[in-house]
């Protein structure tokens, strides 16, 4: 029988982790699938399981003029119902599984599970989210795209606990989000795309896009984004300009075929969604 720790403070939690051979259990909605519980972020079978659901510190949400700080232990339902949470993130949460799973699954778990098809990750990438990791040695902060290294692989070491996500507050005049799932609810993602832009005085003062489920991690490319930023909206009226952006992303996207969908469909649909969004923007 595995040993269970269920601390009430982060300090206690990282103490337990420092002992080694301890796996973290957040919402458990991925861990508990299958015959035996398996933690993606832990190699092998741990001798102890650290349940972090009783840590109130991890369930706080605070904001200031610049950022929103989301406790890693907040459930997706809690975020869905908090209007301080960016609308794009809430929109994506509403499309995760179904209420029973959203009531348990946590924001931190979703990030640490690092699934290429995770619904919230493209939004977190788009919003330049910072991931705060604690251990007995203190805190480290990573930009999310550095924190996630591959499918199920993150910067988290065995003594680290993801405690917070810090999301910059950014106002956008235009946003775009589509999840293409296997059905309308309880659906796994075939492809997802999120976009955000600011149009000021006819110029694209900000423009971003991120794709989910089309590669080993979320695809966001700030170099390509910089090609658009500062351009007049009218630039998008030129069909070949839109095509050049699409071509640039086509080179970055490498979806797989699996039982859920085909590589062809994923690539084609993600690029068509991008084209749709760019065309919408060109209309102001």
């Amino acid at each position: 029988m595995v040993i269970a720790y269920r601390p009430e403070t982060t300090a206690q939690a990282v103490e337990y982790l420092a002992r080694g051979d301890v796996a973290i259990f957040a919402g458990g909605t991925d861990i508990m699938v299958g015959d035996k519980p398996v933690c993606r972020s832990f190699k092998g079978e741990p001798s102890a399981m650290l349940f972090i659901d009783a840590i109130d510190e991890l369930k706080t949400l605070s904001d200031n003029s610049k950022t929103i700080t989301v406790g890693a232990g907040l459930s997706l339902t809690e975020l869905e119902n908090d209007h301080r949470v960016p609308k794009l993130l809430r929109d994506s949460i509403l499309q995760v599984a179904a209420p029973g799973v959203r009531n348990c699954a946590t924001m931190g778990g979703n990030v640490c599970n690092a699934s290429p098809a995770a619904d919230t990750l493209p939004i977190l990438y788009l919003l330049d989210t910072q991931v705060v990791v604690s251990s007995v040695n203190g805190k480290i902060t990573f930009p999310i795209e550095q924190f996630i290294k591959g499918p199920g692989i993150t910067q988290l070491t065995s003594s680290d606990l993801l405690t917070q996500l810090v999301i910059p507050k950014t106002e956008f005049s235009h946003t775009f989000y589509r999840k293409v799932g296997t059905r309308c609810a309880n659906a796994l993602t075939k492809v997802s795309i999120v976009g955000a832009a600011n149009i000021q005085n006819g110029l694209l003062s900000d423009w971003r896009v991120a794709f989910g489920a089309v590669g080993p991690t979320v695809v966001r490319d700030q170099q390509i984004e910089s090609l658009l930023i500062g351009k007049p909206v009218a630039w998008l009226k030129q069909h070949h300009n839109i095509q050049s952006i699409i071509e640039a992303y086509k080179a970055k996207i490498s979806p797989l075929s699996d039982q859920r969908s085909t590589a062809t469909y994923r690539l084609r649909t993600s690029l068509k969604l991008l084209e749709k969004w760019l065309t919408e923007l060109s209309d102001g």
Partner: protein
Amino acid sequence: MVTVNTQFKQAEACGVAEYVADRHFEGQLEGRFYRSSCSRGVIDDVQLPTFPPGYHLFSASDVPGKNELPIVENDWPAFADKEVRYIGQVVYLLVGPDPEVLEDLIKQIKITYISSTPAFTISQSQAMKDGPICGSDNQFDHHELIKGDIDKGFAEAVTIIEDSCSTSYQEHLYLETQGVIGYPKEGKIVIEGSMQCPWYVHHCMSHVLGHDKVRAIQCTTGGGFGGKEDFPDVLAGPLAVAVEHLQLPIRLIFNRTEDIAFTSKRHPVEFNYRTGVDKDGKIVAMDLKLDINSGGYFSLSGIVLQRSLTTCTNVYDIPNVRVSGTAWATNTVPNGAFRGFGAPQTCFAIETHLSHVAKETGQDPAAFKQAHFLTSQSKTLTGAEIYGDMVLDQMMTRADELSDYHEKVKSYAAQVQMSDDKFGKRRGIGLAVFQHGCGFAGDLEDILVKAKVAIVKDPQGNVEILASNTDIGQGLSLTFCKIVAETLDIPLDRVHQARPDTDKVPDSGPTVASRSILIVGYLLENAAKELKENWIEGVEQRFEQVYKKPDYHHWDQQTYQGNAYQATSYGINVVEIELDLVTCQSEILGLWAVYDVGHAIDALVFQGQIDGGLVQAIGYGSSEKLELNEQGTFAQKSMADYVIPTSLDVPKIVSSLVENPYEFGPQGAKGGGELTHNGGAAAYVAAVESAIGVNISSIPVTPELISELLYGCENGDESGGKNED
């Protein structure tokens, strides 16, 4: 007499009904199957681990009777002994107290096989690489049916259209997985479980054990849809052997992964049409070849094939027809019964093909179909007079009133061209007409089943129904009670149905083929009439009835001539969708359904069948993808992978019934449970075709398929990755 029962299914709703997994017997052991890992081969060498005390292994050599599952033909062994024909085939049953120890023992069993090249698809079966899997030609069954003069028909044709349609697998996905529990009691081997047909399980136990000291009892059953018709035999045969040897209670319950991977599925079918249309736009000839993929053993494929053949022209009067059908052996799980039993495949194919023919010859599909409707004066494909009235025209009018079909067809045809609106949405509407023959095929009710029922009145005037037909969710028990209570004109709460238990109920046949109401309900009505006429207060009375074929019903099984079924029910479905041109996903905006089931004994119970059957059919046509991988097993392994509709995928269904009482059914009722699954896929596909203006020929119609049809030629092959399970 008011006969409303608002407490029907109370035990289920309160969570006190006992499904098999809720049953508990003191000292019960667990059973687990060891399954073949080879899709085609011969067992060469076996290495078994040492079993700890209290753990047992059962194999073909432990079978006291015949090592066969008696499902039509007796070709399917209870335990594979030499040959294996599919991955997942049962080789051993392991029994013991701790499931984890059993799982561990299973991992230690090593079997080596001399394998040969497996066939998974019909074309691979036809190729017979490494020789046939069965017989000399891999054909389990083959029939041909001819009406009129096909050559003369084609000679009159001015247009001849060739077309192919195909359907894929469908998984039942009943919410309760397969399960049985066996125990010895009073000198008999008893098996209780999740099952549609207790007498099938009874006969199977008796066949395998070699004696008839057996008893089968249905537990509350969490859905069947055909999946618990024949398949419980696969569990019950080996389990009976183990219970007889050990004389202890043993339960055998599949987990979901096992259930999806290794239980029977709906047969995939391929249809090849050649259809001739004359100068007036009428079909004068149809030549059809259909091939069904049976899987590793014959099972129910012959009966599925017979239904596919005898109903292949659906509700249409086509003068000259030749249809030839073959059931092919392959190295996959044996396919079996699934609500509709061949008809959903056939209805999808003929409806889709006729839409294509209509469009090709410049006609409106609905009008074209209506012009070919069978009428009360027609003869059927199998040469029989139509018994009773055809009310298809009335049903068409009703369907149009409910759905505004014709107006919408016009308005959607006028939608902007796709190039002007490439990121938008397009609407589409589709209609399908269909039928379902009720009862066993041909005259099997008379020569094979000979259903018997009894009703027993106790001295207090309460009436018990004794029949082997099971309520598997379809509300049969309430319908039976209503038939009897209304005939006797007594309150509904004074009638109840006895639990289907082969020690107690006569063999009124299986709960399949939309026969329970038509055949068994009618016997109950007659038994109740007899009781009413002879009612004596204060004493116990028992009345029995045995099936007798109506005089008009004739059938020749050799020539397939006569009444293919005792009665036929009819339906029309209309589906309206909105298709996103970017993602190729479609949202269902409306679902409408009109039926002729003679008469619905309980309108709400039948509405439950309408709603559930249509949603299951929409899933079949749209999202329920079940594909074979290279090993011949299914790529979709879980409830996350196999995508059935959720509450957000379908809207509320609007339905209506056209009364058309049938003389030999209870209160004029015909069958309806399967009918409701027959048309949805075809109507869905017609709606998608109407939205995209491109013909479709296979189901399920996934967004991937639509995307290929619309954009497949745009940028050549874009495929990037490789297949990953």
